[in-house]
């Protein structure tokens, strides 16, 4: 037990595997310690909304039985995992950070959850997030903001702020988040952990509560690139319950982490380096120097449609959200405000249940889809989206990977931007392009500012080239000593 209690906050998947194999601890012991530790630490950040001890201990017992019988307990055997509370868990409350779903107990598991548990993973609990994953600061949760574990007066980023904070704080070894416009990468950058948005379709969204279906991804957060790669390996692959999940073959991501990045052609998009906070720019520049030292060929490229990405994104994402969120009407999902007529009941339920940001996005989405505006907004945005995707296609004819900042600045203060929604949306500029194009992208830590705030570097690659992305990120992390 001593091995766990001293180092529980910095465990990696590999250390859990070795500890179990050497009988230093059992999966049940580790799970009990992890739950105790997470519960004790949680008031510092509010990263978890609720814990699932019964489910966790039952899964841990199963791992211990397999270990005792000499069976393979799976690549994630005994590993404490946190799940963003937009991923449904059978019998375990799933709120999406919303009052509307405060009492919602899903009747089924998301495919990613089933795959994690089949691999031996232990679901400790559900993490806080912006309501229905809408936000960049985690301040839009109905259950209070999350504090950045590195600097408690600052936001952890969003919307997967709870998952990033839990991994950074050490109250989970790995976590799942969801990314629609940067919601995994930006909090990973703000909290100093690794966050991955895989290729669109790489991971089944069955059981991910829908926000914007043409942009939604499930992705892992971890303290090392290798751990993130292993988690993606487990949750990726075709799922017949999600017709948008890809048939593409699944390579061995962990085996690809061979450090062979010499000669990799890297593009730096000039549009991503204008308007960066100076320390962020300096840290990314240092990161690029390190990549050069490791033998990468670096050149400047241009992605000219970048400046239109925010406008394009906030049409498409809100249009899809207004449609996806129509289901919360007081009939099926736990919350209802009483009224005389059916339509008054819908209106009252939704008016009382949704927070300000959800209302803003439902309104914008409904407006851009309303009669007479479809061509001017939605169709226009779909065309601009094609231009953004085309920019990347052209760039990847010349380079193997693109390196860029994740966010214009490090974590900002809680309350600093909450009254200026446009300002908040504009700070998503560097992450939403990857979602619009559907390409794999990730944030890997690349150092800290003089005030000690983490900054992430973004790596983007071609569709389904998570392998190249992980190889580059892993070599970078090891050379820079950035592993958490």
């Amino acid at each position, binding site marked *: 037990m001593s091995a766990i209690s001293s180092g529980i906050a910095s465990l990696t998947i590999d250390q859990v595997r070795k500890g179990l194999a050497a009988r230093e601890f059992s999966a049940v012991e580790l799970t009990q310690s992890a739950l105790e530790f997470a519960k004790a630490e949680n008031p510092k950040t509010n990263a978890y909304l609720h814990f699932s001890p019964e489910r966790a201990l039952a899964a841990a017992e199963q791992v211990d039985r397999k270990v005792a019988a000499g069976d393979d307990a799976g690549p994630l055997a005994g590993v404490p995992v946190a799940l963003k509370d937009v991923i449904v868990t059978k019998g375990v409350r799933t709120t999406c950070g919303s009052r509307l779903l405060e009492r919602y107990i899903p009747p089924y598991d998301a495919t990613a959850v089933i795959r994690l548990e089949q691999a031996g993973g232990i679901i400790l609990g559900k993490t806080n997030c912006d309501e229905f994953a809408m936000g960049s600061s985690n301040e839009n949760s109905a259950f209070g903001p999350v504090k950045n574990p590195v600097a408690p007066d600052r936001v952890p980023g969003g919307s997967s702020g709870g998952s990033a904070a839990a991994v950074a704080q050490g109250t989970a070894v790995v976590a799942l988040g969801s990314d629609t416009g940067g919601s995994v990468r930006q909090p990973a950058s703000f909290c100093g952990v690794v966050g991955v948005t895989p290729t669109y379709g790489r991971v089944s969204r069955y059981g991910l509560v829908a926000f914007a279906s043409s942009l939604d991804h499930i992705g892992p957060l971890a303290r090392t690139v290798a751990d993130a790669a292993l988690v993606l390996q487990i949750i990726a692959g075709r799922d017949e319950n999600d017709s948008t999940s890809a048939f593409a073959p699944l390579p061995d991501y962990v085996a690809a982490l061979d450090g062979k990045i010499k000669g990799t052609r890297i593009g730096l998009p000039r549009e991503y380096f204008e308007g960066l906070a100076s320390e962020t720019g300096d840290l990314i520049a240092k990161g690029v120097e390190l990549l050069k030292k490791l033998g990468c060929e670096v050149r400047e490229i241009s992605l000219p449609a970048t400046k239109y990405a925010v406008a394009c994104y906030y049409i498409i994402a809100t249009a899809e959200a207004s449609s996806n969120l129509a289901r919360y009407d007081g009939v099926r999902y736990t919350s209802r405000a009483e009224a005389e007529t059916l339509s*008054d009941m819908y209106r009252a339920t*939704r008016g009382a249940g949704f927070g300000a940001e959800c*209302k803003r996005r439902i*309104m914008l989405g409904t407006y851009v889809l309303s009669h007479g505006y479809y061509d001017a907004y939605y169709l226009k945005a779909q065309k601009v989206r094609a231009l953004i995707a085309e920019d990347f296609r052209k760039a990847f004819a010349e380079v193997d990977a693109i390196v860029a900042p994740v966010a214009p600045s490090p974590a900002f203060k809680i309350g600093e931007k909450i009254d200026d929604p446009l300002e908040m949306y504009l700070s998503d500029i560097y992450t939403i392009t990857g979602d619009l194009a559907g390409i794999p992208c990730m944030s890997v830590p690349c150092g800290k500012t003089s005030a000690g705030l983490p900054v992430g570097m973004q790596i983007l690659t071609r569709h389904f080239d998570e392998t190249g992305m992980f190889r580059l990120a892993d070599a970078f992390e090891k050379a820079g000593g950035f592993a958490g």
Partner: protein
Amino acid sequence: MKITEKEVRYVADLANLKLTGEEIGRLSKDLDEILTHIDTLNELDTSNVQPMAQVLYDAEENATLREDQERPCLGNELALANAPLAGAGYFKVPKVIER
């Protein structure tokens, strides 16, 4: 002004959202600002661009089709378990038709 309070009320009606007077004022201002930013898209000539209707798709058109076989479904009890009001195997809602 890109959007008036009257239009905000109309859109709220379409979206089935009951809003307070204060919310309508706030949303008029926010949406106006966001729609003004969105207008920058008009700088781009997209007359010869095909809209992106599909993010990416790596398989044959019929790859997701399967044999139509009976499979167990969620079941009535589980499907209704989260309903705010249910009875006799149905979701219950306020009266829609007068008789």
